């Protein structure tokens, strides 16, 4: 079998093209890594409220209130007890589409964001791909905002530096709020 120059030339370009198509195939599969996770509309079947997510907060309060009522709603003043590795066992969602769900806390960092490799994945229009994280510093739970677009709020004020979290204080990310509880 004799191969002509032309065949070799075509095959040579073909190979380079194949190699680059493989690379762009991987890059295409990785696009959510580069440009952030795609925004998905919230489910509208549960209540009409989530269509405008902010109004979901009062709607969800009665469900959460059953739990939150006995606990004094302390503002994050200095006298409130801080969440540490010893007195905190869970994270409870208090408002948003999954209000009432709880999440066990161990000693590992909890990452929050729209990215699918976060521990707490919040997929609404207001969350960033890597939004915030909860981590243990010297046995105390700290809340760190990872330069999110719409901010992380601890008891109503925006978090800019890693901040200690009081027990039962509301942390708000997008349309979801949660508290750290015993």
């Amino acid at each position, binding site marked *: 079998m004799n191969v002509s120059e032309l065949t070799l030339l075509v*095959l040579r370009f073909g190979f*380079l093209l194949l*190699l680059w198509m493989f690379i762009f195939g991987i890059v295409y599969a990785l696009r959510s890594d580069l440009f952030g996770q795609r925004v998905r509309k919230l489910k509208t079947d549960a209540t009409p409220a989530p269509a405008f997510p902010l109004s979901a907060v009062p709607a969800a309060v009665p469900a959460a209130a059953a739990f939150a009522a006995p606990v004094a709603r302390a503002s994050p003043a200095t006298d409130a007890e801080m969440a540490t590795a010893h007195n905190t066992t869970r994270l409870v969602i208090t408002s948003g*589409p*999954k209000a*009432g769900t709880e999440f066990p806390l161990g000693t590992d960092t909890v990452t929050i964001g729209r990215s699918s490799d976060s521990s707490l994945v919040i997929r609404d229009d207001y969350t960033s791909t890597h939004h915030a994280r909860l981590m243990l510093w010297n046995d105390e739970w700290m809340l760190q905002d990872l330069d999110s677009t719409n901010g992380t709020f601890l008891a109503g004020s925006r978090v800019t530096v890693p901040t200690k979290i009081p027990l039962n204080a509301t942390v708000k990310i997008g349309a979801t709020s949660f508290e750290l509880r015993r």
Partner: protein
Amino acid sequence: MQSLSKASALSAQPATEPVRRLRLPQKLRNLELFLLLIACFINASAVVLVQLGALGELDPTLVLLGAGLSVLVISLHVVLRFVARDADPFILPIATVLNGIGIAMIYRIDIADQQGGWESAAVRQTVWSALAIFSAIVVLLVIRNHRVLFRYTYIAGLVGVLLLFLPLIPGLGQEISGARVWIRFGSFATFQPGEIAKIALAVFFAGYLVRNRDSLSMVGKKILGARFPRFRDLGPILVVWALSMSVIIFQRDLGTALLYFGLFLVMLYLATGRLSWVIIGMSLFLGGALIASQTLNYVNGRFTNWLDALNPDVYNAKGGSFQLVQGLFGLAKGGLLGTGWGQGRPELTPVPQSDYIIASLGEELGLAGLFAILALYLMFVARGFRIGFAGQDDFGKLLAVGLAFVVALQCFIVIGGVTRVIPLTGLTTPFLAAGGSSLVANWIIAALLLRLSDTVRNQPRLVV
């Protein structure tokens, strides 16, 4: 489907309830299989193109050998389906393509050197690939959770140092072209234990820094905006520095020393977040390298070859820049699109299948092909960093970034040396170059990254 109904049941009940793990269909593994099939096709077409270009005909025996590699990587994929369902889907296809292109180039140089049969370098490389992929499977089966490695921090450190200095034992070690980094089994097989040592040392550094980083990161005086460590906290960095300097002096291997010291420095920076460690480390290493270049003959020679490569005296000298300049000529001949598989003369450069495989590939695939290979390395390393970034425990984070960085630094040292960015030092190009120990080490790194990425995704999660 069952998992999805569970998830919807979860959202329907407002009452407090522990989170159940979501089990999605194996989307990641199917993506991996798709990419893997393309990767195997690329490898097969590389071998076929080598045969058409260099021999002008098809020789089916070696195509069969290439099929062996495909069977192995697909069996690794099947293992992943069972033991690491959520592992990263890109690492395996990228490693496969790099390994296959390496085998094709080694085969191409075998043809030029008129080597054939079962003794040839390409067959050897394929057998080593099989062994390497098999050890990756064993790693995935044995290590079900990377945190197990945290328990063996200090043992890993001891093993790493022992492996590093094994070639210095008389009778066991073997000196090849000046460097004493090989050990010999029997009459034919040589092994470079330093390649395995880099994994052991990455485990050790990660474990050690997670345990001891507070004293390295918190205290110290502030000078010119950067916080510098106390004098007594300099112990670890001085020990690692002394270790790498002794590698330069006794094993006469600049590249390995740079690799280990760079690995430690990056992991130290990552663990403490202090730039002052990088400043201290860089000045220590540059100081050491400068002294070595003045006092040690072989280091001095490397520097002359690098700075004055095109001088005819240096080019013609014994141990001069002949190899380096031949490599550059090869790259120049390749140009933008290369001469095509089997159509260049990469065999004119000494050791074109190991240290200079990048120059050989640059000649036959051109700048376009070389950039494709660099892009593959970039994506491999970026996946490693990504796994580290998404990791929940500090040990896993440090280990993932350390392992990925070792691959990146090794690429930089070798490719930078061949392209005259830095002085040339002998290291293998990960996955590509001929060399069994390097293949085994890099496939184990790939297996560890797969394991880490599986643990990262496979944890209690809540999707809102």
